[in-house]
């Protein structure tokens, strides 16, 4: 029996008004991702990578076409349904980490679970498990401003993974990291992908990232130029 794709994008276009003109960020994109894939959308700045991730993360809606994530039509989701999808099934990792500055590492990671109304014991166990994955259990009480860039991104990974989501969307996760930290982060994500079966979709133009990807989707000027298995 053929497995249902976890992400299915069909003929998706997205346009924005810029200086009174419509700018086409995405042009008739077709894409499918299966569960457990470790894939990346690769392309130069302005190619539409982040726009596509935002649509798949239900933060934005396509202007045309259909995007299905976990069989849910992104276009048809209400605010609350989209929030619920993000809260339970989608983890985000951002380029600039986006950690909540006044929270400790523990509280940052705990946040998603708070929204799910888990008990304090469940939350504690899950947060410590997630921090253990990224090797930051001894930093639980620190604030983000006391962490290095690599540590901050690892907290962001723990935050994305703590709720055991089906999909993690990582927008240029290594762009603000040095080479050593970038490799560490990517190894961590690869390990989580293999151990937990979580689907990872990156947007990147970083050569280092490409080495870790199983599948590379090349995007240029809002169009998929090439979609290939990584031979590296």
């Amino acid at each position: 029996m053929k497995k249902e794709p976890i992400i299915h994008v069909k003929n998706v276009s997205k346009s924005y008004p810029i200086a009174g003109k419509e700018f086409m960020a995405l042009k008739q994109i077709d894409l499918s991702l299966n569960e457990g894939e470790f894939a990346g959308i690769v392309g130069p700045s302005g190619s539409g990578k982040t726009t596509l991730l935002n649509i798949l993360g239900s933060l934005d809606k396509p202007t045309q076409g259909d995007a299905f994530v976990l069989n849910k039509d992104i276009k048809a989701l209400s605010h609350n349904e989209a929030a619920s999808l993000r809260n339970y099934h989608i983890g985000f990792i951002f380029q600039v980490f986006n950690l909540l500055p006044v929270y400790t590492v523990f509280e940052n990671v705990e946040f998603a679970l708070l929204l799910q109304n888990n008990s304090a014991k469940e939350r504690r166990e899950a947060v410590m498990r997630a921090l253990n994955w990224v090797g930051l259990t001894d930093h639980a009480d620190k604030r983000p401003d006391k962490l290095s860039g690599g540590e901050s991104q690892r907290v962001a990974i723990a935050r994305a993974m703590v709720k055991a989501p089906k999909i993690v969307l990582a927008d240029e996760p290594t762009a603000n990291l040095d080479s050593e930290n970038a490799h560490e982060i990517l190894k961590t994500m690869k390990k989580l992908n293999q151990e937990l079966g979580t689907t990872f979709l990156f947007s990147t133009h970083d050569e280092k990232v490409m080495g870790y990807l199983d599948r590379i989707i090349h995007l240029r000027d809002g169009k998929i130029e090439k979609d290939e298995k990584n031979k590296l």
Partner: protein
Amino acid sequence: MKLELKLAFRNLFGSRLRTLLNVLVLSFSFVIIILLNSIMDGWNQQAQKDSIEWEFGNGHLINEKFDPLDPYTILDGHDKIPEENIGLTPILERQASIYPQGRMMSVVLKGISSEQEILKLPTKILKESKEEFPVIIGKRLAESAKLNKGDRVQVRWRDSKGTYDANTLSITEVFDSNVPNIDNGKIWIDINKLWGMTNLENEASYFVVDGKFKNPELSSWNFKSQFALLKNLKDLINQKKTAQSVVYGLLLAIALLAIFDTQILSIFRRQKEIGTYIALGMTRLRVVRLFTIEGSVYSVLALIVGSIYGVPFFIYMSETGFPIPPADQKMGIALAEVIYPVYGLKLILMTVLTVIISATIVSYLPARKIAKLNPVLALKGKKQ
């Protein structure tokens, strides 16, 4: 709601200095509002108590021709004391002139039974005195006429037929009362003496009534209850309270403006944070609620901080009181040298509710903008 509350506390405790400043400003307003109101309430209670004890008793039964606020009615505003006079302490008013140190001053001679106990006036001294015309006066008249206890002063009055007469009064006591109405220009004399001086035997301008008075329908006498007599005083204090509410309204407005500004600034500066909340699965409505609750929590923290330094201050004030400058005591209303604040439950609850509700409203107004934010732009921290 519980989660938003928890997060709001977390956010506020996290942003230490900003929270501290807002909380301090708001707590100061909270303490000042309670203090100003409690002083007004203290004044109200003290003024009512003094007025009842020194002037009003349980009410006045006033001759229909006599108007206490119109000196022209003193001449004819009197009548025979009714036969049924249980619970009535008669007071007869007559106009007179005194000549302290060669000056002439218009005064009102007020005849009262030296054995009365309904008013706090020290009238027993009048009975005990060996002087021919012993009188008591209040400290205000004593000061304006430069008279002291033991002094003598010439007095001239007219009897019932209009004939002038004169004699010498002996100041046997200068009493200290907070009620200017029984003091300024008033000389208290035994009513029997005044009846003799004026040929108005057994007549009174009005009566102070006590608990035994049953308020029968007495022709030519009108009854004014204690409540009715206190009305002017209450109206005056309420008017002062209203005027004062402008002051604490301004104070509260400044504190609320600080919260409003913080909220506006927060929504601009915390765009990335708002975007992150939404990306992590918070609905926009919940983010609006979170920011609104943050504003309300300022007021809750302000109440706690205000209580920490306010309660000892309130206790200290209730023990030492609030001194009233001598100039203010000459305003013509019952005003003690020291006013002791009264902290009523209603006052505290009203103040707490006012502060919390107004802080919530000023927090909600800017927070509504969050509902319209584009989360994609917010995540990038772009100003919207």
